[in-house]
């Protein structure tokens, strides 16, 4: 499926998304957290899209907002899409989990939680994965400070 066709199809499902192809080799769509889970399920289950392979899940600190970027590929049609979701709440950011759609998301979401502090709703095992349980702060956030262990050039 071409990027235009994909874009049309997805806009027909969820009208309020932003699509762009600028600055990236993939079609990128941005969606609000509330619509994320439905959209993802549709992307996976609709035969025309069939995005069954979540090959990358990245947490990003955009300064104002915290976000997650999902890179999806279809193993049948071999097309890709990037889905972005953002939340403005830096104190208690929450986003719906997609680990029920792609099992690989379980570990990747734990990693994002560990480093960015984004809570994933309905995640089966939402706890830190790399850091110790009692670690304070979320190290990959831009405002994270650690005077002892961090060297800033």
């Amino acid at each position, binding site marked *: 499926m071409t990027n235009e066709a994909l874009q049309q199809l997805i806009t027909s499902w969820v009208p309020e998304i932003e699509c762009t192809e*600028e*600055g*990236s*080799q*993939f079609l*990128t769509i941005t969606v609000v957290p509330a619509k994320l889970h439905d959209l993802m399920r549709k992307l996976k289950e609709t035969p025309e899209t069939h995005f*069954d*392979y*979540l*090959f*990358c899940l*990245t947490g*990003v*600190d955009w300064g104002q907002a915290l976000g997650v*970027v999902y*890179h999806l590929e279809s*193993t049948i049609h*071999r097309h890709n899409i*990037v889905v972005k979701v953002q939340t403005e709440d830096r104190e208690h950011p929450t986003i719906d989990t997609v680990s029920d759609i*792609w*099992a*690989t998301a*379980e*570990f*990747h979401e734990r*990693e994002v939680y560990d*480093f960015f502090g984004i809570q994933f709703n309905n995640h089966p095992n939402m706890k830190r*994965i*790399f*850091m*110790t*349980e009692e670690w304070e702060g979320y*190290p*990959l956030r831009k405002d994270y400070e650690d005077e002892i262990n961090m060297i*800033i*050039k």
Partner: protein
Amino acid sequence: METVIANNNFKSEEYFINMGPQHPATHGVLRLLLTIDGEIIKKVEPDLGYIHRSIEKMCERDSYQQIVHLTDRMDYLSANINNEAVCLAVENALELEIPDRVKVIRTIIGELTRISSHCLWWGVMGMDVGALTTYFYGFRDREMINDIMEETCGARLTMNYNVPGGLMYDIHPNFVNRVKAFITHFKTKIPEYDRLLTDNVIFQKRTQGVGILSKEDAISFGASGPVGRGSGYSCDVRKHHPYSALDRVKFNECLETAGDTFARYKVRIAELWESLSIIEQLIDNIPEGEHRVATNAVIKLPKGEFYQRVETARGELGVYIISTGTKNPYRLKFRSPGFSNLSLLNHITVGGKIGDLVATMATLDLVIPDIDR
């Protein structure tokens, strides 16, 4: 410790055991929290982070040339392929035209790296199922590749041979002859691997029907590399998204359908042959030319997002760079193959014995620094 037990809701027959972080079968500092009933595994929960160095955070303060050397320290057995991934991402972002010579050399060195990684894996696989001698035979062949690497790149493990724009130095004059000598040597050794381990009845009984991963699960768990291909899932990045000189060589994607430990083993052995064939196709016609394109001393990527996928010895490595136009990346994410492959460990080992867990883990071929970036 106490909290772990409290969270596990044991039945009376079950008990809890710590496998790692210092355990011979976990190949590094991986810690597995096992819930066991006698010898039967009820639950496997990996506990990670014992050597997490926060490479992604370090990348945010490093220049693009400096990032390359950090990737050596992720999956140290595919160091060259990791370097290549970052360099390709940067070069694509800068829209640099890379000379053919560089592309061919990168591919040859990448495949050599794959062979050396699989040699080590084969040795360790044998050792994990109890055949200690395989380790040394695997290392003997790996040693030849290490010598080639040392002569050309200057180091045996953390080479840092690729730089954005090409290669740090040109290949050594002995390179071609040494690689050819290695190919002739290694072609007689793979059948020996088969005679010693693959055909062995004990080994086959240990691995067949153990740790079965279905194709659907493989895709859902994001398995890649030999782990995915052992389940019949065509996931070779070299085939689907060819990079460097891989679009001009003929090779087969090694697929097995059984999805068990033995299938994953056979995929890797078959990959040894395929990698040899790729090198053979390229080694005789390395094009003349520059080994490096001049770049600015300070590389600034344009604003945007760049994603590069490569196939390391363990599976798909993704480098995701978000750039704001400065000399450092705003965010750099490594999608490491080991992390996704580890996530399916619990799924495929529950119900097996402790011995099965060890054999299965050996074919997942985990490198812990790759998981704990």
